[in-house]
């Protein structure tokens, strides 16, 4: 289903530089078994929209090519061509095409060359599905009535449920064919396809051929156990990864039997009348019947990022590109505005997107950048160990060892040294992390998002709804010369709790606030109210409820006769109400200064007083003060008239001012501090005036430097992109921007090289969420569109879970590094011990079986346990990692080499001692074997952190899995010398107490050396000091 995600997630839309020598290799044939149908892999196509367009549009014009479909998610292109042409011709054409930098003439209108993929002979006939085919009718050329007639439905009534049921049976469910999950067997068999297994097999055959049947059996056992572990972890990871991208059951609103009903999107059938509303996805392909400015974002299908307006008119030519079929809507596209009706014409695999998916077939997400790096690393290790083993073989021969023994030893060393666990560890860790996050209600939708989370440098946050509660609340009332504040619906007068019922003018103000108000109030006093209206007016009704005013009865008592809304020149709203006892009541609310202007009187302690100039100044001051606190201020006044027809003598009485604000969500301030601590910059995006934005920015402590930078602009898109790029790095708050501007902001941040996250929930947020490195959608309040384009969904809308996601993302990356660290260092030590010993004529310190044992026992389990290390305590106090840095830097390799050397030195000393005491033989082997494994197990402990050593003051959180793995492995290792059967199998002897002491020293000392020389620990200290130094800044100025 990943095909539904927007294909535009790529940073760099620039065309790749032409004329590279690698171009010849850029196109590979993946599959060309069927004549006339070829699937090609194109380098650079992955996540690159311009290349997709170029390939598709240019190839489509080629003679002999019937159809092209390129997929940026897989980096592959499917070409259907005239069987008279060969695959190589096609491949050649594509290569030429990529080499030729000139843009296709249609660059201006990318979608114009994208012809529908429906084949001339329907593809559907090829797979013998039970559901009957839906014909390839050119629905866009038919009139609305013709379409309805053909589908046996009506616009008003829709289908009857029974008929829909029948159609559903006939056409099948409206779901896209899913790629079948990899079967357990295929995962299991996959375990045997790796190079180490081949080596092991060769070793087994060699053993069997030379009479070592027991060896062969053990080797096969190793293979099976290896495969078993691989199978278990991979199968679990497979399930987790498979579940990515699902955003739950989609529903569709349709008309059936004249009723508007919600059905599962899967139950849509041709002829259903879909009701299209913004924020939802189109459930099936349909012909538009009604459109009220219906706007659809079709980028999922056409790549065109601007929404398209849909109309109902009939098109006259069948040959119209998909993007220009303005009277059709397509499954999987998003409605961004307006509303409309459409009749379903195609469902499931017969939709345009279904056809694409059927053609493309494979939709498995490609490997993440980190996985690719690990693959490369694994291959390098294979080459390295292969080369060294070959060398060792030659040295051994030169030294006069038997060629058979050397061959077996070399092969087993190769087996032991190849880090076959690398890819498994990475996949498993990623999958485990994703599951962990899901438990904390963070839904990760793309595998690579996990990695990116760890590198996130800046997060853009929506103010409304994300940082604030999105609920206007009256926080202060000024009336009768008193300043009354509200907290949790309780009134306070100068810190003392006060009863609003005792305050005549406050009560009147509240009543006027309810009367001069258009909020719909549903529900009763007892059962709680449900309010529907503008945020400001709802807040006033809430205020009345808090003050104990019976809203309903008050409104019944004073029915509204007339409402005059605020206009451009008149900043207040005025309502006229009839009074039961006769006469009328005029209620006014609006701009305090304008309302005050028309008043002659005011009320203090229930007594009407004339407004003096001093009173007015005091009120104006209060107004300014509240506005200064970034409160939204409203003034209230009323007038009573004994005679309903008295027009002129409206003597308004000033009641007071209310100040309201959208309160900050609890805990957000602390969260912002956490982001800053984790080295992540925070940017607030708001449509508010900058005074309000400033107040909130100050309250939240958005700036890390104390200086708050606000960019106030209604038209960011007009700004020179370069200028915006420069500014965006500095800005803490973007004020008065519309959601549509979020895209510019995120792009500006990305241009400056930042890894940027963006939160959002609205339809307009779609493009920005898609463009962000990490698009964060809100699970509950978010629209379908926002959720489906995001990388991370916060299911309970709690931004605080984001910090967990970041911690998890960083931990996963670090843990993979730890596993790789362990595997690399220990495997290197094995190679060093063997080569060193054989090279110096000390014989083979480890037998074939011992090498295999090491491979089986000490490699896998500690590495897996390291992959589930808990977060390091300071994981959220470090800056994010540099996204451009490879997972292992050259410095890391040097360090691992050093560590391996320390372990080797210890083992060699132990071996040397044993050789000196017992001579070359099983006793010496046992000493080396025990020392090396013990040192490796201790090294697993050392790999827990690059920074913390056993000498550090802070302790790491315990990792029970590692303890278990180390204890279990240690026990097995002891058993290998203690249990007679194992002893004979492995060719070990029981070490003497003196031997044990040497083994302990030989394994313990390297551990201490490695712990004491941890570079990270020293670097950590230095960073701490630098931070201290840089915080002593000068706040003064010279201006």
């Amino acid at each position, binding site marked *: 289903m990943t095909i539904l995600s927007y294909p535009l997630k790529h940073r760099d839309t620039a065309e790749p530089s032409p004329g590279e020598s690698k171009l010849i290799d850029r196109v590979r044939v993946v599959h060309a078994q069927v004549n006339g149908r070829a699937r090609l892999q194109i380098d650079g196509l992955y996540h690159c929209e311009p290349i997709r367009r170029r390939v598709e549009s240019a190839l489509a014009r080629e003679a002999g090519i019937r159809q092209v479909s390129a997929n940026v998610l897989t980096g592959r292109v499917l070409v259907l061509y005239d069987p008279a042409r060969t695959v190589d011709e096609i491949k050649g054409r594509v290569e030429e095409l990529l080499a030729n930098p000139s843009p296709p003439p249609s660059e201006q209108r990318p979608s114009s060359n994208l012809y529908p993929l429906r084949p001339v002979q329907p593809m559907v006939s090829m797979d013998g599905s039970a559901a009957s085919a839906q014909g390839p009718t050119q629905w866009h050329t038919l009139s609305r009535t013709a379409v309805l007639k053909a589908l046996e439905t009506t616009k008003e009534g829709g289908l009857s449920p029974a008929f829909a049921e029948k159609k559903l049976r006939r056409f099948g469910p409206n779901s896209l064919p899913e790629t079948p999950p990899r079967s357990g067997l295929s995962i299991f068999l996959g375990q045997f396809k790796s190079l180490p297994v081949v080596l092991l097999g060769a070793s087994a055959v060699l053993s069997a051929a030379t009479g070592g049947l027991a060896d062969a059996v053990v080797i096969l056992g190793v293979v099976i156990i290896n495969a078993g572990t691989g199978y278990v972890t991979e199968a679990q990871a497979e399930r987790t990864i498979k579940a990515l991208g699902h955003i739950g059951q989609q529903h569709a609103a349709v008309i059936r039997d004249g009723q508007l009903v919600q059905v599962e999107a899967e139950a849509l059938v041709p002829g259903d009348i879909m009701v299209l509303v913004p924020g939802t996805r189109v459930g099936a392909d349909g012909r538009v019947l009604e459109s009220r400015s219906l706007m659809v974002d079709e980028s999922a299908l056409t790549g065109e990022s601007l929404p398209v307006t849909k109309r109902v008119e009939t098109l006259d030519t069948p040959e119209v590109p998909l993007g220009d079929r303005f009277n059709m809507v397509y499954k999987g596209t998003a409605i961004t505005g307006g509303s409309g009706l459409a009749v379903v014409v195609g469902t499931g695999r017969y939709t345009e997107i279904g056809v694409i998916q059927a053609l493309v077939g494979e939709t498995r997400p490609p490997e993440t950048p980190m996985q690719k790096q690990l693959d490369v690393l694994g291959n390098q290790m294979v080459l390295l160990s292969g080369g060294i083993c070959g060398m060792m073989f030659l040295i051994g021969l030169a030294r006069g060892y038997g060629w058979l023994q050397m061959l077996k030893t070399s092969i087993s060393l190769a087996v032991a040294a190849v880090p076959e666990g690398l890819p498994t560890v990475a996949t498993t860790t990623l999958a485990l992390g994703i599951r962990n996050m899901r438990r904390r209600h963070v839904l990760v939708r793309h595998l690579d998002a996990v990695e990116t989370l760890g590198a996130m440098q800046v997060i853009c946050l929506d103010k409304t709804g994300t940082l604030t509660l999105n609920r206007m609340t009256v926080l202060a009332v000024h009336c009768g010369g008193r300043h009354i504040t509200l907290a949790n619906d309780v009134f306070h007068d100068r810190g003392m709790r006060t009863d609003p019922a005792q305050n005549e003018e406050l009560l009147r103000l509240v009543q006027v606030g309810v009367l001069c108000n258009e909020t719909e109030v549903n529900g009763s006093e007892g059962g709680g109210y449900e309010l529907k209206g503008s945020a400001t007016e709802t807040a006033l009704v809430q205020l009345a409820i808090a003050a104990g005013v019976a809203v309903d009865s008050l409104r019944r008592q004073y029915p509204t006769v007339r409402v005059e809304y605020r206009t451009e020149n008149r900043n207040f709203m005025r309502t006229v109400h009839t009074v039961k006892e006769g006469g009328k009541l005029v209620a006014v609310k609006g701009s305090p200064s304008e309302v005050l202007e028309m008043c002659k009187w005011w009320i203090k302690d229930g007594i009407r007083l004339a407004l003096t100039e001093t009173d007015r100044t005091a009120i104006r001051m209060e107004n300014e003060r509240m506005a200064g606190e970034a409160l939204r201020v409203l003034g209230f006044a009323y007038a009573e008239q004994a005679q309903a027809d008295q027009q002129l003598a409206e003597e308004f009485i000033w009641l007071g001012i209310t100040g309201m604000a959208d309160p900050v969500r609890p805990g957000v301030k602390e969260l912002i501090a956490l982001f800053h601590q984790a080295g992540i910059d925070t940017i607030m995006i708001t449509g508010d005036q900058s005074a309000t934005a400033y107040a909130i920015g100050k309250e939240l402590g958005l700036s890390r430097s104390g200086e708050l930078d606000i960019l106030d602009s209604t038209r960011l898109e007009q700004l020179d992109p370069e200028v915006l790029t420069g500014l965006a790095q*500095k800005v803490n708050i973007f004020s008065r921007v519309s959601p549509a501007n979020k895209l510019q902001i995120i792009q500006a941040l990305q241009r400056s090289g930042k890894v940027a996250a963006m939160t959002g929930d609205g339809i307009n947020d779609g493009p920005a969420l898609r463009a962000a490195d990490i698009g964060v959608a809100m699970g509950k309040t978010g629209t379908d569109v926002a959720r489906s384009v995001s990388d991370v969904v916060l299911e309970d809308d709690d931004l605080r879970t984001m910090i967990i996601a970041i911690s998890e993302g960083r931990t996963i990356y670090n843990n993979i590094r730890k596993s790789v660290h362990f595997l690399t260092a220990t495997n290197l030590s094995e190679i060093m011990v063997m080569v060193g010993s054989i090279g110096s004529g000390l014989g083979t310190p480890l037998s074939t079986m011992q090498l295999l044992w090491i491979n089986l026992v000490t490699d896998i389990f500690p590495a897996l346990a390291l992959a589930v290390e808990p977060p390091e305590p300071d994981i959220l106090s470090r800056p994010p990692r540099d996204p451009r840095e490879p997972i292992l830097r050259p410095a890391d390799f040097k360090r691992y080499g050093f560590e391996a050397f320390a372990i080797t030195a210890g083992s060699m000393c132990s071996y040397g001692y044993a050789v000196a005491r017992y001579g070359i033989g099983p006793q010496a082997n046992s000493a080396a074997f025990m020392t090396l494994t013990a040192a490796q197990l201790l090294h697993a402990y050392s790999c827990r952190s690059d920074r913390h050593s056993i000498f550090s003051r802070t302790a790491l959180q315990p990792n029970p899995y590692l303890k278990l793995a180390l204890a279990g492995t240690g026990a097995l290792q002891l058993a290998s010398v203690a249990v007679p059967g194992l002893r004979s199998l492995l060719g070990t002897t029981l070490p003497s107490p003196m031997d044990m002491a040497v083994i302990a020293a030989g394994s313990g000392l390297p551990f201490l050396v490695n712990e004491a020389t941890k570079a990270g620990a020293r670097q950590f200290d230095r960073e701490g000091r630098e931070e201290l130094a840089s915080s002593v800044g000068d706040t003064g100025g010279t201006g």
Partner: protein
Amino acid sequence: MMKQDFMFTSESVTEGHPDKLCDQVSDALLDRFLQQDPFSRVVAECAVSKGILFIAARFASAGSVDIPEVARQVIAQIGYEHTDFNARDCTVMTSLMELPSPPYPNLDEREMDEEEIDAVTAKNQGNVFGFACNQTAALMPLPIWLSHKLARRLGAARLQKQLSYLAPDGKTQVGVEYRDGRPNRIHSITLVASQQSNTPRGVRSLRDDLYQHVIEPVFLNEQLRPDARTRIFINPDGPIIDGGPSLHSGLTGRKSAVDTYGEYSRHAESALSGKDPSRIDRVGAYAARYAAKNVVAAGLAQACEVHLAYSLGMARPVSVQVDSFGTGRVPDADIADRIQAHFDFRPAAIIGAFNLRYQPQVFRGGFYRRLAAYGHVGRMDVGLPWEGTDKAPLLG
């Protein structure tokens, strides 16, 4: 000794000039802060380029100001409406830093006693200059006086719709020929006026319009008028379309000659706009002008330059120098003594005497903002306290 026969040119700019726009935004912010809290400490600096206005403000104030909103009001009042730069959708980048509130209580300088006034010292080393001469009724040098007058008229012609096609940006220069130290004739006049892009007008008709609506009315009541030999340049580099920040950038405090005496006398290089009254480099300049003007008004000299040197940590200026350029009736040192006897140059005394903290409340439309265009000194339109000649009788 001042030269006797020479030509001197001063320039002025309209309020739409980007540098002046920045000055006005800076001072409008100051006004708003002081209106809410007279003891606000504010440093507001602006820069404008293309469609972006940058504001860097450091402040400590009990008041709260919507800074971009104030800036937009200023831009709107100045009259920028072009799509590249207008009040509605220009981008305003603010960099705000709140300063810690001062540890001492805020005392009203008007009610301070001697000891308290002495306790308020200069916060910086610095020179300030004040000048006055009897070339005009305002006791300002004639070139800057005429330049300001032309610039104002140029702005007014646009605002009063006489030449509604004009854009807000403009510059004026007047060259005056002096003979025996007195202005003798108008040597040259330069007017650079920008026009709105939607109503293009040739240089020729613009020239006629400006002559009729700007130059003629300005010189109507002047003693010296352009004669036949006066060189008049109108947009010498050709028509300027729109002008303003979309054409050239601006910065607060870059027009210190325009703000003072048109380079006719010395002036301090530091900016005057955007600084609250506690800054001696701003209020000292006003006090020095006050002293110089009274010296000339008292008839002690025909031209007088007062130089005050302040030193950090001291309230009184460490030196008070007077130069009358040989026009003095009494020796310069004598004038200096008289000034020191009758003028209190301590920072708190200046603030108190000129009521600088409360002026923005008196002039609701803005006090400092008005100073930010057409000169901080020599203004006859605002009723500035330092333009009063009330101390002249004491000096004479």
